[in-house]
């Protein structure tokens, strides 16, 4: 008997086609409603690995950006403090020049000495600056104030000692790229020489006999220390610029990564809607033909 078509096989074919169409529509619907091309790894195994890799990369760039922002904040804070110290040093230099003038009397020198003392206190205060509890000039001993002053019976500073260490703190701002965000006070203040010279300057002015040659030597030593500090300030200021550039390039790569992720992972809504329309048409016709075919039997025509 050639090619018999039974009701059962008609029903089966109709049903399986309708199911298939619904399945396709469900797939498109899922992509459209989630907005994603990949909703589970099996949707696109190689795309999944790519997206996961890109996301991990993007997260890391975000970490570098975070680090850069924090570094910027810390460096700016330190830079501001350094600038204050620099200004204080300039004032001290001016005062020292003024004091070196032989025409001044002892009382004038005492006045200057007192002024120097005030400035010394200010320098010390700045050197012990903390940023939200972290002492910025203590090396890695960030919870210890950087300098301790020993005072004589009159409460005047007689010597200053450094409590920190010379260790650098580095942040990672890129693959294998680190930036030093602190400036250990030991190096900055020339192994305390800046302080000890300042104290000697003050004491020289207070001394009963003023040795102008010795004073001039001290002034030179202090100038050297002030210049060394200026060099550090300039170097440190340059870091802020470097960080600005780092931020820009990190932001660029972050944007690029996000675009790549979106390209791989996000659904193409326009083409999905066209697909959906097409699938709907197919479903409509399979439903219509199914309805026509499975209803009819010979019974309708026999009487």
């Amino acid at each position, binding site marked *: 008997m050639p090619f018999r078509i039974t009701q059962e096989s008609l029903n089966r*074919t109709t049903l399986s086609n309708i199911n298939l169409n619904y399945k396709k529509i469900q797939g498109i619907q899922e992509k459209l409603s989630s907005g994603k091309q990949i909703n589970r790894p099996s949707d696109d195994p190689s795309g999944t690995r790519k997206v996961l890799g890109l996301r991990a990369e993007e997260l890391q760039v975000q970490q570098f950006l975070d680090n850069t922002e924090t570094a910027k904040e810390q460096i700016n804070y330190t830079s501001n403090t350094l600038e204050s110290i620099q200004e204080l040093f300039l004032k001290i230099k001016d005062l020292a020049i003024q004091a070196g003038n032989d025409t001044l009397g002892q009382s004038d020198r005492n006045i200057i000495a007192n002024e120097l003392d005030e400035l010394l206190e200010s320098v010390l205060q700045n050197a012990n600056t903390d940023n939200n509890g972290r002492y910025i000039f203590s090396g890695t001993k960030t919870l210890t104030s950087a300098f301790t002053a020993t005072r004589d019976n009159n409460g005047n500073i007689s010597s200053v000692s450094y409590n920190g260490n010379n260790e650098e703190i580095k942040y*990672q701002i890129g693959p294998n790229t680190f930036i030093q965000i602190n400036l250990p006070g030991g190096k900055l203040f020339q192994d305390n020489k800046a302080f000890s010279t300042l104290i000697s300057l003050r004491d020289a002015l207070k001394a009963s006999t003023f040795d102008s040659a010795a004073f001039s030597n001290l002034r030179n030593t202090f100038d050297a220390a002030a210049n060394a500090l200026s060099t550090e300030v300039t170097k440190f200021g340059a870091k802020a610029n470097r960080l600005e550039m780092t931020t820009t390039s990190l932001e660029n790569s972050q944007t690029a990564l996000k675009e790549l992720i979106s390209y791989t992972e996000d659904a193409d809504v326009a083409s999905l809607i066209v697909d959906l329309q097409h699938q709907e048409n197919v479903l409509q016709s399979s439903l219509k033909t199914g309805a026509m075919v499975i209803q009819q039997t010979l019974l309708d025509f026999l009487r």
Partner: protein
Amino acid sequence: MSSDLQIGLSGILTAQRSMLVTSHNISNANTKGYTKQSSVLAARNPTITTAGTLGQGVELVKIIRHKDDYLNSRLRDISSSIGSASIKSQYLKELETVFNETSDSSLNNALSSFFEGINDLSQYPEDMSIRSTFLENANTLTDTFRRIVNELDQMKTFIKQSIENKLSDVNTITSNIANINKQIASLKTKGIESNDLLDKREALLHDLSKLTHITVNTQNNGMVDVMTPGGSLVSGTNVKSLTFDIDTSGTLSITDSEKMSKFTFKTGEIKALQDFYNTTIANYDKKLDTLASGIIKDVNRIHSEGVGLSGGFTSIKSINSVSSSTAALNTAGLTITPSTGDMYITVINTSTGAVTKNKVSVNVATNSLTDVKNAINATVSGTAGNITASIADNKLQIGVATGYKFNFSYALDPNPGTMGTSTASVSGVYSGQSNDTYTFTALGSGTIGTTSGLQVEVKNSGGTVVATLDVGSTYTAGNTLNVANGVSLSLSSGSITTGDTFSLNVINDSDTTNLLAALGINTFFSGSDASNIAVSTDVSNDVSLIAASTGEVGNNTNALRLAALQDDTSAINNTTFADYLHQIASSLGEEASNAYKSEESYDVIETSLENRRDEISGVSVDEELVNLVRYQQAYQASAKYISIVNGLMDRLLSTLG
């Protein structure tokens, strides 16, 4: 005349019986596995007359089944394949949900957050709230590992139950087949074809093949034997019932009810479940374990060499025990096998800050834990503060004299010695390839920072000059000089004489033995694989123990080392931790996507085979209706004939009467 009536009667009876066959077909049009039957009609034996043979009407000689044995066996095969494929795709879908790698609660995200926490720690190593956040991130990572392992275990339990149920289905079906075999054979001896029983058996064979792939042999007596590669399930009226067994290594096998012989199936639901239980889940379990143990090992290795906020310990006890305190360390049952090398213990005087570095050399092939204990006790003693090691419960315990603390840091000794009257200070982090010793020697005599051309030479342990430093008139005492490999030196003012010398241990790995990580001393994680990974109790109880530093509180050197682990392309199977995880996700996706596709394609094949079977064996209602009309007409014609014969008889009788 009576033979005339007989012919008419045969027509009526045959038409009636054929209508019965037709109506049986129509009523079974929707019966699963029903095979269309049709009546075979033939002329009855004729009467021989002188004129020739005279027909004697019609008879129904046989009711036949329209079957195709080849198609039926193909359908059984495909049913087995569909059974396999649907189980596979069903459970892979579930596995995809368990791993859930594209969602927010994924292992991938937990791992990223863990490293993000380390990164934040590197920004603010002294901040307790950042440490607590990092601890939470680490807990999420370990919880996620354990959650997945737990869900895999639950899946295994579920699969085991499912196998049990399906085996009992197999046993029911096979005993039914054996019963029908018996009935068919007994009818056959009476010469009767038992069409509907054959259909019933065919349906049972089809159901059975969904559970497991079978081959069917029909015997001459009408019985069938059901075979699997492992042995026969039904032979005639004998049934072998099945059960399963799990051996000590956790492998599930299908056996006969006496657990005497093993059955290996080719395809089908049971085989797919068995494979999933024995291979697929075990495979993902293993991959998870590889990842977890890799993370535990690397993080602990780095963490154990770091220092927490307190800067050192006064006492510490290992969390992992050795199998025997006298066994060589490489055979002492440690999950991480230590290697031969050196371990440095730094002792710090808490009041002066003076640092002593002590080297303990370990040969893992010959030294036992007791030897290590003795070596620590022997090496680290004297005026620098007594370190005492002891062993309890096969665990190593280290303590130090009052007024001292100790750590295992690779930080450089900040004050390694003096040169003449000048004190040397060292800073920086050694970045060289391997541990070394630098010897600093004065090349001339004079005053630091004053004497023109005054130099200090630095040699490594191989005698090679790594740096020559100018400390004369161009140098300001107290300034830092770059030596080499990240090490910096500063000399205080003072005078030196040719030949003045001191040496400095430059260390980048303070435990080349990995003994600290193996024993669980100052480690971050406890556990050895994905099922038991956890943050160590000590760290959980006190986040200040998180070793972000190599010395002081603001030092983030070790946090940076931990953070660098996320980029380590040789961390695991020549790739990073994250990428290894991405590979797992992607291979699972690949496996699942293939399973979905093959399930779909088998479905298509089954539909087309079923349609072909219907072409031969299916009931077409239209066709049956046509037959019905035909037999109805035949009946009517025969009845008419009888009525005509009857009329003839009447006429004859009345004429004669």
